[in-house]
């Protein structure tokens, strides 16, 4: 029988701390190291200084501060470019050494999950080619897309457990003149933002204390090989992944809960491209409307290519159907950059987003009309041939 005292315990009295010794999964660190000892691959070590955080089962994960090799996302760079620009801009403002490579392909996992026109060996070879390319530069891979991140974790799992796959991929990489390199940790940029949140907050120039926000964590971040995601006792008592929420709270934002937090965004990989009725309906009915009804947020912050795309772009059709929409969406990197004073159009590139974000900027006291005029002055100069590009120097604060 359940003792009464257990039923009437207040939440604050329950302090769940995961015991790594009781974890239901093996520790990938041990196996990755073991396979290095056996000569199966070279482990790319996280460069110092690293920040130590905890994963789902309270094991330590190391996050590099700098010397980072930015594994970009095709959906972010292609359709929401302010997302990646914001990551680079924060690195630059904090004076951190980082590298934006052109010797990088997409992880190709969007296609793998959408069309299945690939296989385990091809996917692992693409991943390991990118990891080898990073290792050659001396910079440590940091993954911008949650699907790339999830897929690479899956690939690591498959390589760990299948000697035959390892041999096959090793042979392919040899033909490309590359070695088999496994990073010590697979790191998502949001984890870096989480680890750097205090330094970001030190540079905060925009007061965000009056803001209400909801967040959506990417399925491929915390569900796919879910043990390798960051958890922290100060965020939902370590019962939900800490990324995004931790940043927002550090910036003084009121993060509000809603009942479909765990639900996916409706992206669907193939659905967003060829079957969007599903994506639109799910995003609007299971996420946006629920957030608006239950949490009344000013902004929705997410951290993946597909989630930001689906949750933002789906609202236009929702409006046509008189649904309760109109919630601006951006990434944690964009919000962090905005807090540090980044330009809403030169850096955040908000004109690539769909849902109106002007009321949100106004609430923060940001003059978006002036900012847009400044951006247009640059594009006019590009059009007239007076200048070729917008540069980083144009974006410094």
């Amino acid at each position, binding site marked *: 029988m359940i003792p009464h005292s257990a039923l009437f315990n207040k939440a604050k009295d329950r302090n769940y701390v995961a015991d790594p010794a009781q974890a239901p999964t093996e520790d990938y660190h041990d196996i990755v190291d073991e396979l290095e000892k056996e000569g199966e691959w070279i482990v790319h070590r996280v460069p110092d200084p690293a920040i130590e955080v905890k994963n789902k089962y309270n094991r330590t994960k190391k996050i590099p501060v700098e010397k980072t090799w930015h594994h*970009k*996302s095709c959906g972010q760079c292609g359709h929401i470019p302010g997302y990646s620009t914001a990551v680079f801009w924060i690195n630059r403002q904090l004076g951190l050494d980082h590298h934006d490579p052109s010797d990088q392909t997409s992880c190709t996992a969007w296609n793998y999950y*959408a069309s*299945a*026109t690939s296989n385990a060996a091809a996917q692992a070879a693409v991943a390991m*080619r990118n990891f080898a390319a990073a290792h050659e530069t001396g910079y440590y891979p940091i993954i911008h897309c949650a699907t790339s991140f999830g897929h690479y974790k899956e690939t690591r799992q*498959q390589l760990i457990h299948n000697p035959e796959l390892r041999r096959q991929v090793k042979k392919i990489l040899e033909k490309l003149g590359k070695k088999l390199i496994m990073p010590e940790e697979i790191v998502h940029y949001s984890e870096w933002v989480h680890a750097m949140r205090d330094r970001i907050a030190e540079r905060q120039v925009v007061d965000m204390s009056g803001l209400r926000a909801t967040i959506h964590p990417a*399925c491929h971040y915390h569900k796919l090989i879910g043990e390798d995601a960051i958890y922290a006792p100060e965020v939902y008592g370590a019962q939900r992944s800490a990324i995004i929420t931790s940043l927002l709270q550090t910036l003084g934002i009121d993060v509000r809960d809603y009942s479909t937090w765990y639900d996916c965004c409706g992206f669907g990989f193939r659905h967003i491209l060829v079957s969007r009725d599903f994506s639109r309906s799910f995003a609007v009915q299971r996420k946006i409307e629920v957030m608006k009804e239950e949490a009344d947020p000013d902004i929705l912050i997410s951290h993946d290519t597909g989630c930001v795309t689906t949750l933002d772009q789906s609202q236009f059709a929702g409006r046509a159907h008189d649904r309760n929409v109109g919630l601006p969406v951006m990434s944690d990197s964009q919000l962090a950059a905005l807090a540090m004073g980044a330009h809403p159009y030169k850096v955040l590139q908000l004109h690539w987003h769909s849902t109106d974000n002007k009321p949100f900027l106004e609430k923060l006291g940001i003059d978006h009309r002036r900012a847009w005029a400044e951006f247009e002055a640059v594009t006019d100069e590009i059009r007239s041939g007076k200048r070729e590009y917008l540069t980083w120097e144009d974006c410094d604060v």
Partner: protein
Amino acid sequence: MSAQPPATPGRLDLSGRQYAHVDYDEKERLFEEVKGDLRFDEYLYGCYECGICVASCPSARFYDFSPRKIAQTMAREDVDLFYVFLNDSVWDCSQCFSCDVCPRKNSPGGVITVMREVAVKNGLASAAEALEGYGRVVYKIMSTGTQVSPDMLSANAFPDWGPHVEEIAKNLDVWRRALPPETMHTTETSWQVDDKTIIELYLIWHMTGVMDMIKEVDEGLFMILQDVMEEKLEDAGYDVSFD
């Protein structure tokens, strides 16, 4: 005999009648191919038939779709029912892996990934149909190394995303140059990818048999990709044929 239409439109017909004309041996061959995949043993350990995966599944809310039924069918080795799901259900999955919450440690979404691959590899008509309209995306990722490029944003392709898409398309070249990262001034790819990198990607496709899969579901796309890749590989000094 040709396939019969489902009993009720929108409802999954689990009777198997619609595939009664397909040899059991053929269904079993495909079933064994799924089971023989190196990922399968980590994706399915049995099934409690508890339905926890369904509770977390976005596709189950909108389609007549159930990861439980798929996991259960695979665990029970029901070959006839497997064939129904292989054709009529797997493409509804969102591949979100919410179902990884399974208490049996299954990944029904992972089982579905493998089933889809087997459907593609064997050129099933249902797979070709599911991928209709998707060819340009496959072309982009396989030939350029990045998937959804800036130049894919057009009002025709995304009429439901709002007027800003047309605005982006109109200003594409200038707006790409108004991005501070030097690698992102591109319009045909999401960032600038080195030629050497592309060659390495083509060699990976070649060595892993991915092009054979494309050939099974879309011969026209295969031929276009073959032309592009063989020419580039030849220029780089590789004598490689995808035939």
